[in-house]
């Protein structure tokens, strides 16, 4: 729904080969896939991944693919060669736990890239990225790109230190990184929203753009706080999806102006003011 660059290329549907599926010790996994004909992607776009690898017997349970942010692999592949793309995920429900069992060499079905990319901040602005839980994965490539051009603060939150997915990658970036854990095992004890306060303390609206991805309550809280400060807040929503390309109408988000928008097609990225937060489950 935000003004953002158009899709790099048309989405593809393919079977990708698992190169690596590495557990990070905190329930998170980094899945590397080799995809042929990969058209590239914009930061903020996602893929639909089959719930687990393809096995000798075709499986229809769990039925639906799972939306996952593209963590690495935004460059288009060269003709005839396969490209590596990465997703970071947490094994929580049935689909992601099956995905966690995928072994190198097995095949995973992929549809993507889907959705729209993040809209650019104004030049010279401080960019503040706030990630909660697996939402962090959606923000990484955007942090990389923004850090090339302007000052970037990254605020990450999770229940405990081990669950801060992608932490090492963010540490390697030239950004102002701050963490919060609910059990206090790393960084500030408490929620990531608390880290936002000092950054917003005396900032003028035109000096900052905020980008947020994480659980709905966290995004809602950031959105309210940004709105009080008059700061533009962009969110990346994580609604349940069946198709990911605009045909099932299952991912609808209610809008403040009335009606609904399809998160998989017009989103997943929205200006926080467009979203009717009270209408989200």
């Amino acid at each position: 729904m935000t003004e953002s660059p158009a899709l790099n290329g048309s989405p593809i549907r393919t079977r990708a080969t698992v190169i690596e599926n590495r557990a990070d010790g905190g329930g998170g996994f980094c899945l590397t896939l080799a995809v042929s004909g990969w058209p590239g992607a914009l930061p903020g776009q996602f893929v639909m991944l089959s719930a687990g690898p393809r096995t000798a017997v075709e499986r229809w349970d769990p039925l639906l693919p799972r939306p996952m942010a593209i963590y690495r692999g935004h460059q288009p592949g060269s003709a005839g060669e396969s490209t590596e793309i990465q997703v970071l995920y947490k094994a929580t429900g049935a689909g992601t736990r099956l995905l966690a069992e995928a072994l190198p060499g097995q095949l995973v079905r992929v549809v993507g890239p889907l959705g729209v990319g993040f809209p650019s901040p104004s030049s010279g602005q401080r960019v503040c990225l706030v990630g909660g839980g697996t939402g962090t994965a959606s923000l990484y490539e955007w942090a990389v790109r923004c850090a090339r051009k302007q000052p970037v603060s990254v605020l990450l939150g999770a229940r405990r230190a081990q669950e801060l997915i992608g932490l090492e990658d963010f540490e390697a970036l030239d950004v102002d990184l701050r963490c919060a854990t609910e059990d206090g095992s790393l960084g500030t004890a408490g929620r990531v929203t608390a880290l936002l306060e000092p950054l917003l303390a005396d900032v003028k609206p035109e000096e900052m753009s905020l980008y947020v991805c994480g659980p709905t309550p966290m995004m809602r809280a950031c959105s309210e706080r940004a709105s009080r400060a008059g700061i533009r807040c962009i969110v990346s929503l994580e609604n349940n999806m069946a198709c990911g390309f605009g045909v099932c109408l299952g991912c609808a988000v209610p809008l403040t102006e009335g009606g609904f928008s399809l998160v998989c097609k017009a989103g997943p990225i929205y200006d926080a003011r467009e979203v009717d937060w009270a209408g989200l489950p």
Partner: protein
Amino acid sequence: MIQAVDTSVEFAGIPLRNPVLTASGTFGYGTEFAPFLDLRRIGGFVGKSLTLEPRFGNPPPRIAETPSGMLNAISIENIGVDAFLNEALPALPDGVVVIASCFGTDPEDYARLAQRLSDSPRVAGVEINASCPHVKSGGIEFGQDPKLLGELVGRVRERVSGPLIVKLSPNVTRIAPMAEACQEAGADGVTLINTIQSMEVDVETRRPVLSNVLGGLSGPAIRPIALRMVWQASRAVDLPICGVGGITSAEDAIKFLLCGATAVQVGTTNYINPMAAGEIADGILQYAERHGVSRVTDLIGALEVNSPSAS
């Protein structure tokens, strides 16, 4: 030399290059599939059910996953008939067979809508959705009472001279009287089944998973029920039948043909594999070649049953 297999069928007076269509509500308005599938590879598609005015659906959550299936309570969210005729249809390449689906709250709505759609030269036929299980009024009321259904189809028939198909609800005790009512009222074909009324519960929150509480079940979980109903309907009426429900492969599609369906529709599988309908069409051809079947129409109703009284 192997003779080329003739895959064409005629459903409700609509010539199709092969018997594989896609189901309403699972294929958008067709163009969404352009990156994945040449729409001319399949028999055709049925568009999302339309209403006279554009309409928004239910609040989220609208979908939920269940064993080998999914629930939905979208509630006929659609762009409305004007946008369909003026924007969606012209965006499609020539040669794509389009069946338009209509939904209304009273027979007059259905008749006006069906007439407008049927008058368009780009619409090969009209399917009336008399079976949406989760819209408060309309749809399912007609789909559960053979007398009301017959009246509805009769009203639409008066205004539509082109192919008229009725989509039936599985949420009935007996499917045969519903198909018979359509035949008597002058329909050219029936499509079955729509989704099966269902619900799911989240025990952590002790709430229904869908905002609408009730939803419709689709996907492989419903295939045996759909197959049974197609079989029963095909024995009750002479109308051509389009079989829908949980089709994931060419083998699944062929089961419906054997049980008496002239064509099939692929639904939920399109979400999981947007290329599925094309692969299923190819698979039917390969099956025919493998089994020395020269015309796909030879498979229709070719089920061998020892005790036909079982129906």
